[in-house]
Every structure is written in structure tokens, then in C-alpha cells.
């Protein structure tokens, strides 16, 4: 991390708060799912905390995001209330989507989380549309599309980047490159040396940064968001990172290089950033208090999710069309 950073202390602590919220929520998700109290497919974002935390401090609730099945970190960083998120993952009537979407389809328009997709590559074309609406209406909103390195090999990525560039849409494409598309290593599936190289073909700025460095992410996102707000068009940010818990919860990681995961975990971005903050003069007690508040929030959210009722069977056929089925 750059010690010359001019980012104000409140922003730095805010980034850390979001990272700690993701880390601690993820720890608990895995524990609760392992206990069997909640049954859900779970794609842990552990290790990727810094990316949405440092992107989101550049956004407001007015700004939109589209994210993907590995997206709990993006949602928490954008402000989806823990209680509603937990209840949705538990499939309860009190969840963001009344238990009808689940962890791969969390939606919460109040915090700007407009679409979560379970289809690789599909966050980008829809983010374009959110940005298009803002552009036509003359609003200053920005749309962020999150996706993984694997998604840069699907057609939708290329169609979306081209259209966003031709129309100068206020959109930021944030690729969280964690080195693996499902079980396949980056090099085996991707022709580009780095994903940001692909921006050149679409005549948009592209940068590759250390996605585990919150200051690097913050700076890149700040510039991209400012460019989008100024009507100067899209940016592709490739944030390099690593996922600590494989593709899906329960993954045996047998496809990974020996020691690769351990090495990444030894450079866990959350405690690293915490130490850096403390060394820089942020009071230990301030961070401890913030962590304690997060733990309390999670305790409440878990209890809320477990105690909430399951959806009424009448929900099966509601929200299919505007008019209810007869």
C-alpha cells in the first residue's frame, strides 16, 4: 500500500468497515451453512473483500450495481441490510426477495443492487441499460458491473463493452480476477495476458491493479466513477485477487497449485489493511468497536433469518406476471 496516500481517514475506516463486514459475514455464512441450519449453495467471496469495499465508497445509494452469484461481498459493501440478506439466503419470507431469489439473485433497489445473476457474463449487458437510462434522463448516476475473469471469455462481455464504448455509457466494468474460472486456471482459458488488455479493443481505459490493495482499488474506482459521471464513458478495471474457499462451498480445491491458496491466505487483505491503519495512527479501540458492532449486527441478522417464517405457498405463483394468475 502506498504510504503517500491522501485518502482521508474517515474514508479509509469506512473501507475497512465494509471489508470487515464482508469477512465476518462470510465466516458466519460458512459456519451456519456447515451447521445445516441454512441450506443454500454458497460461493464465498473471502479474499476479495477489498474490491467492492473500496469501489463502493465512491458510490451512493443512487448508483447502481449488477453483480453475480459470487456477490455477497458486493451486496454488503453496497449497503444491503444484513438482516434482509441473511433472511434471503435462508429462504425466508422476510428476505430481500421474499425467499424467491436466494443467494444468487439478491436484489435490493434501495441500496442500488438492481440485479444479481447466476449466469456468467450477464451482469454487464444489464448494467449498460441502467447506465443508458441515467444517460437519457440526464442523471448523474453510475452503474457498476461486477464479474469474474471467466466472464471475460463469454460473448456478452464483448458485446457489452463495445456498446458501452460506442454510446459512452456511465458504466464501470469491474473484473474480480481471482485466477480461476470455476476449476480452470486463468492461463488455460484466457488468451489475454491481462484482462485490461481487452479494453484496448473497445477504445476504453483499462487498468490492472492489485485488488487486495484497498488504496489501489479506491484510486482506480474513483477515477473511473468520475469519468463516468462526467459523461466520458466506461472504464474496465481488472482487480487481481484470490478466492480463499474455492468455487463453491465444499470445493476440495484439488485443481489448485500446491501451496497457492496458503500463500494467498498468508496475505489476507483484511488483517493486512487493519494493521496498516493502526500503524498509520487509527486507534485500535476504534477498529475494535467497529468490529464489535459488526458482530452484533451479524448476530441479530442470523437470529432474524433463523426465526423468520418460510414463504407462504401462495407465493409460488405470485410475481410471475403483473397480474396474478387466475
Amino acid at each position: 500500500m502506498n504510504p503517500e496516500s491522501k485518502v482521508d481517514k474517515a474514508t479509509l475506516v469506512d473501507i475497512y468497515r465494509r471489508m470487515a463486514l464482508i469477512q465476518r459475514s462470510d465466516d458466519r455464512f460458512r459456519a451456519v451453512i456447515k451447521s445445516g441450519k441454512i441450506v443454500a449453495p454458497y460461493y464465498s467471496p473471502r479474499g476479495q473483500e477489498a474490491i467492492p469495499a473500496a469501489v463502493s465508497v465512491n458510490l451512493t445509494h443512487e448508483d447502481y450495481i449488477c453483480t453475480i452469484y459470487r456477490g455477497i461481498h458486493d451486496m454488503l459493501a453496497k449497503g444491503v441490510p444484513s438482516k434482509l440478506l441473511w433472511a434471503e439466503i435462508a429462504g425466508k419470507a422476510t428476505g430481500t426477495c421474499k425467499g424467491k431469489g436466494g443467494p444468487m439473485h439478491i436484489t435490493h433497489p434501495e441500496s442500488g443492487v438492481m440485479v444479481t445473476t447466476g449466469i456468467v457474463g450477464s451482469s454487464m449487458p444489464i448494467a449498460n441499460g441502467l447506465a443508458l437510462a441515467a444517460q437519457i434522463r440526464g442523471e448523474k448516476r453510475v452503474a457498476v458491473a461486477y464479474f469474474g475473469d471467466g466472464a471475460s471469455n463469454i460473448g456478452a462481455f464483448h458485446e457489452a463493452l463495445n456498446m458501452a464504448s460506442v454510446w459512452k455509457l456511465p458504466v464501470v466494468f469491474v473484473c474480480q480476477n481471482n485466477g480461476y474460472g470455476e476449476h480452470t486456471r486463468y492461463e488455460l482459458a484466457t488468451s489475454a495476458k491481462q484482462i485490461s488488455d481487452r479494453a484496448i479493443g473497445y477504445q476504453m481505459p483499462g487498468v490492472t491493479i492489485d485488488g487486495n490493495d484497498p488504496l489501489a482499488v479506491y484510486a482506480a474506482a474513483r477515477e473511473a466513477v468520475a469519468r463516468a459521471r462526467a459523461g466520458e464513458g466506461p472504464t474496465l478495471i481488472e482487480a487481481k485477487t484470490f478466492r480463499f474457499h474455492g468455487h463453491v462451498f465444499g470445493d476440495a480445491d484439488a485443481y489448485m497449485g500446491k501451496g497457492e491458496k496458503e500463500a494467498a491466505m498468508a496475505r489476507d487483505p483484511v488483517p493486512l489493511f487493519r494493521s496498516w491503519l493502526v500503524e498509520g495512527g487509527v486507534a485500535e479501540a476504534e477498529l475494535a468497536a467497529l468490529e464489535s458492532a459488526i458482530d452484533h449486527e451479524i448476530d441479530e441478522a442470523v437470529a432474524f433469518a433463523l426465526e423468520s417464517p418460510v414463504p407462504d405457498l401462495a407465493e409460488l405463483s405470485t410475481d410471475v406476471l403483473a397480474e396474478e394468475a387466475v
Partner: protein
Amino acid sequence: MNAPAKTKVPTMNTIQTVNLALDEAMELDPNVILLGEDIADGQEGGIVGVTKGLSSKYGTARVRSTPISEQAIIGAAIGAAIVGMRPVAEIMLMNFTTVAMDMIVNHAAKLRYMSGGQTHVPLTIRTMTGAGFGTGGQHADYLEAWFAHTAGMKVVAPSSPADAYGLMLSCIFDDDPCLFIENMPTYWNPGAMPEAGKRIPLGKANVVREGSDVTVISYSRIFNDCAAVAAKLAGEGISVELIDLRTISPLDQATLLKSVAKTRRAVVVHEAVRNFGVGAEIAALLHEHLFGDLKSPVQRVGANHSPVPFSKTLEMAFVPQQSTIEAAIRRALG
């Protein structure tokens, strides 16, 4: 004796009526925007000119020619729709919807449900198709059964210029994703003038001709062949009740069941291939509800189970002709 002065009855074709509906919708609501390949006037207002004049009137911010990128077109339309716009996205030919199936089926159709009703997608997808132009296997399929099979969307297929106008207005101002199927070979056929501003309700079939011997159920271009056959058979004293579905999904079950409960015979006719088609769904519905009352099994008429062939002779044999429809009606009559 002098012949009376001929008064010319005013007519419009489907290109004109759809254009009129789009124009009126854009005038009425600034949230209505158009996206599609070549649709702006700089690109000649669409390959058959359906959107001609609209970009000049409303600007290229609202009437956008797009790259040839069907996923990006529908994706952009979905994103704009969930924040309150009413996009009309043109997928030039129905076969090209295959390139955007993920966006249409996994996203447009499902976002209302998966979000628990927090978002919805008031999107209209215009697309044209139909055999008869010698466009071969990838430009002329009727694929409506795929979309009717998908929960969360509406599938609309007008048979006349006036219906196209009224149904298009309803689709644009409907809060669900609507797939609107236009028949390409009959775009230029004149028809009765639409009534200004009149929207035709979705999900409601049109009993075009009342009859007592047999119900013929159809939609889109081939409905007109059914009407011609019904008129011919009337000369023989055969009374055909003729139903134009207008909306394929949601299906107006009540109107179909009421009619067939009366006639006790039914024939379903579509240009899509017969196997696993909309006709199979309707035949099953009628048998489930009216098995004991039917005087004969429900007949299905559809295209041959093959890709659309190029050679005119084969193309004519692929699409059901009036003679095929007539034969099916006679089979139903026993």
C-alpha cells in the same frame, strides 16, 4: 345507368400501424425508447421501414441504432426497463432471438419473480418472421412455443394491421416483458384502419366469426388463411367459429373452452412446426376439460417438422396451405 362514384376505403398496412403505435407511445411517454439494428433514419428507419421517421422526430437518444449485438440490445433494454423506462427493443428476425435467449429467458422473464416483485421489466421485444420469402432455415422460424413455455413473459402475435396497432400499444404500456411477433411477408398487405388510441387488451382472444359446427383457433398471418377457408366452407353450409388468439401467452383459456364446449369440435392452426407446438398445448387443454363432450379429436395443423427449406416448391410444402387447413376441418367434422 351511371355507375356510382367509387369511394376509396382508407387502409393501412402493418408497417404503418406499428409505426403509428410507436409514434403515439413515444409522444405520450418520454420513458418509451427504441433500440435495434438499423432503426434510426440514418440507417433507413429499419430494414422494412417500421421505425421510419421516429428518430428524426424524437432524436437518436431515444431511437437508437445499435451494434449487431442481440445480447447487448436486450440487456440494455432490461436494465433501462427495471429503472422505469419502457424500451421497445427490435430483434430484427425471430431466429436472432436465439442469440439473446439468456437475456430474454433468464433475465427479462424472471427478474420480477426472483426479486420478489421488487423489480419488473416493462420491455417489448419486436421481432419479425415467417416463411414465404425464400429466406431459408435461419430467417423464417416461428419460435413462439419456446417463449410461451417460459413463465414471466407475454407472447403476442397479431393477424392484421389494426390488431398490430392496438396490441403494440398494450405491450408498450404493459408492466411485463412482451414478445411481439410480426409476420414479414404480409407487412405490406393493407387492412382496415385502426381506431386511434384504442388499445387491444392482452390475454384476450378475439372471436372473429361465430359458428356452431367447429372451432378453428389460430394466430398471426395464417389466421387469415383460416378465415378464407371458413368463408369458403360457409358456402357449403359448414359453420366455423373462428378465434384469433391475439395473445398466445397468457392463453385465454375461458374463451377457447366456451367456444369448444358449444361446437364440440376444434382445429388449431399455426405456422410453427406442428410437433411440440402451441397447438399441442391447446389440444391438451381442450381434451382435459372437454374430453367427454368432444365429437372428434382436436386436430392440429402446423408446419412440417424440418427447418424452413429454401426452394419455393419445398417452402410451399413446408407451410400449411388453405387446403391443409380445410382438410383438417373436414377431418374434425368426421
